[in-house]
């Protein structure tokens, strides 16, 4: 019995020392209780660029007798999609001329194709481009 009491007293003494030891955060303190000291920290974020709003192109009065370029950006299945759209125009709006183009350039989807852009500027009235996957 005496031995049990001694062990209990030692354990309580140990716990008491543990909790008053400076720098040791009690579970209560760790939950951010009132009185916990506030500190100031720095933002880790970078600087986003300003946004320059760009001019949208004027819309067409109608597609009647206009040339629409169907441009494939290179994603799988886009050839089938644009081919079906071309067929739809032919069946439903035969007065619209459609031209299918594959965007070139080295670098995949993001690659510029200056030759195609020049052709579009010269010959296209409108562009449909896919496929954002």
């Amino acid at each position, binding site marked *: 019995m005496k031995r049990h009491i001694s062990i209990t007293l030692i354990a309580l003494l140990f716990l008491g020392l543990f909790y008053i030891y400076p720098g040791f955060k009690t579970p209560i303190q*760790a939950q*951010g209780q009132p009185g*916990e*000291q*506030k*500190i*100031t*920290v*720095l*933002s*880790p*974020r*970078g*600087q*986003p*660029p*300003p*946004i*320059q*709003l*760009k*001019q*949208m*192109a*004027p*819309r*067409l009065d*109608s*597609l009647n007798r206009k040339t629409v370029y169907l*441009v494939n*950006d290179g*994603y*799988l*299945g886009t050839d*089938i*999609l644009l081919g*079906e*759209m071309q067929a*739809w125009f032919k069946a*439903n*709006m035969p007065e619209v001329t459609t031209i299918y183009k594959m965007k070139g*350039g080295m*670098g*995949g989807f*993001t*690659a*510029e194709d*200056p030759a195609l*852009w020049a052709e*579009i*500027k010269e010959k296209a*009235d*409108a*562009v*449909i*481009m*896919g*496929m*954002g*996957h």
Partner: protein
Amino acid sequence: MAAVVGHCINIESKLGVPTVPLIISEFYEQVKTHHTIQKGMPGLRVTYLVSPVWGKKAEQIRKDIVSKSPVSGKMVMQEIVENLTKPLTAEEKKTGTIEQSSGPATFTDTPDNLQRIFLENRMTDYMPIILPTEEKVAEMLKGTSHDPDEVVGKMAAHTAMPGENNVEVFEHWSYTVKTVAINAVMAGAKPEYLPVILAIASTGKEAISVSDNSFTEGLIINGPIRDEIGLNYGIGALGPFSQANSTIGRAWNLLSINAGNCGRVGTTYMGVIGNPMNWNDVIIAENEEDSPWQPFHVRRGFKPSDSVVTLCEGWGILSAKNSKYSVWEREMNFSGTLKKIVNDQDMLFGAMAVLSPPVANYIKEEGFETVEELEKFLAPPMEGRSGPPKAKIPFGFRPQINIVVTGGSNNNYWSYGGMAPRQSVLIDNWR
């Protein structure tokens, strides 16, 4: 997807031709709340389609384009015609400049609340951070001689920069030496790691790619810096067994999240499955001392005494024991096994073999005096590989094989994967 938006905005604004980008409906939020705004054309008239398009037969797509768009509820082809012909609204005609802010420069609260604020504002990797007080950041900045206000670079969730060759996919945020130091503190890095982290940051390469492929990034670190900062290139080299290995990749990730606006699911992160290697990236300090060949950076033109970090990207690295070609035999033919595995890799990122020193030394004894000789032997033929013969190489990449030596000498293991090395940067410039 963002590339289509970028091209269409350029066609509208530069060529004066109306466009309709076609995008699957899963990207509606990303396009509407991010891309069109960031690229300066919030009114871009997108037509959204039912996903997926890839893999469907013509008959299915024929039905889809005369069905309702999942976003607008209008018949797809009808909406396309309307998008090209309906006059622009006053809102759509707006021009000008919108300044952006990334929020307050400082935060003041209790430490626990700050941890929560950082986490809830997606300024962490969802793990606890070291709070970047002015004192800790000042201590970190002692790791470099560079001015804290020096601009280190620009970063976005996709590396494509605007220019003659590519359309910009995401906007590029800029950051200073101090911003890099703040993120390094948060990651748990030591000041002596800062030159490595700054060298990585100077490339502008993001650690967390937006791609739906769920790419991971990697680093190969060579030269005296390895021992100076305690990088582990012995047993467990690719694992979390030293502070330097564990925090440099994390610092790159945090910098990408905070200074490159990367890793925001739904806008700047779209990896379908995700990649567990994104937690810390693939960090490889080469075991130059036990390698029988020239170090990786020397083969790239640097001096042995240079400290260099090489950035890689790809699918990741896994044990060669995963391959059906890797079998235990009484007498191993490592170069033969290596060749079989390398030839079985997809060619987008080529193949990377991470050899333990014993395997590298066995291969040298098989007669490969240099890595160049080995790479020539391993070079995959263009025909007879998995996939269609003479398949078109996507994105202009070329098959390549890269050999790196690291790890312990306690057994004959090695790893492989599809990781392509890109830029190599001199760390010494950032000391």
